[in-house]
């Protein structure tokens, strides 16, 4: 059976390669209900796809360990600038 998923008006035939790309969309919550069900059904009968999806989820989890924040001084400078520009405007 030849499935076609429609994403943002772009047709992507569900070949092995594009299905992996759909699983990336699934992992990032960018498939609608119908597309999600189709992707899950494709995974149910295909261990390779299941493994790929698991690997995407694991990579996402690992990538989540990187979280950086600006130094408080940077935030103070922005606040000061905002305050000054407000005073000037008034």
């Amino acid at each position, binding site marked *: 059976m030849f499935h076609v998923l429609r*994403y*943002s008006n*772009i047709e*992507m035939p569900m070949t092995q390669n594009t299905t*992996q*790309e759909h699983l*990336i*969309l699934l992992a*990032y919550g*960018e498939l609608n209900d119908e597309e999600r069900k189709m992707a899950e059904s494709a995974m149910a009968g295909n261990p390779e796809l299941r493994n790929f999806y698991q*690997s*995407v989820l*694991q*990579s*996402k*989890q*690992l*990538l989540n*360990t*990187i*979280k*950086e*924040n*600006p*130094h408080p001084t*940077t*935030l103070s*400078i*922005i*606040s000061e*600038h*905002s*305050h000054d*520009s*407000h005073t000037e*405007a*008034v």
Partner: protein
Amino acid sequence: MQKPVISDGALLKVYLEGNESALETLIKRHKSRIFTSIYLLVSDRYLAEDIFQETFIKIIQCLRTGKYRDEDKFLPWALRIARNLSIDSIRQRGRMPGIVTDSEGNDIFAYIDIKEDSREQIVIEREEYASLHRFINQLPAEQKEVLVLRHYADLSFKEIAEMTGNNINTCIGRMHYALINLRKMMQKSSVEIK
């Protein structure tokens, strides 16, 4: 009872009416996404601090002069400014950064909240953290950009396509290769994938 979340658009409106704390709330809400994206794109903490600052100064100027009207899309707009400034900065330096650097060679983990108190565990986590940074920086520039904008900036592929002027399938394809390449690098260096 949970407090209702004030939308970005409502915060911008209140800010323009003179409430300075509305901007602080906006920054607090989005600073991590914006800063992590800038930092990963330019790979230099001090440069990232400068670009983050410059991004918000530009945002303030646009708001004050009425140049920004799309109140519901604050984050994609802010990220577009941050990305453009990051790209300009990379162009000025004449190359894409290859490794994570700190201008003065300081500990890049100074701002990272490490929960484990075991010294050995901290060392392992730092090594893994540094490796992951390095792997992201070793990705081809176009793959790295999509990965950073999708994963860290949390933009949709559609928004990334619009921002970068590429086809949406090209962006998804680049993300695909980025994830595959990262996985290969992690497996090669035995970074633990939990």
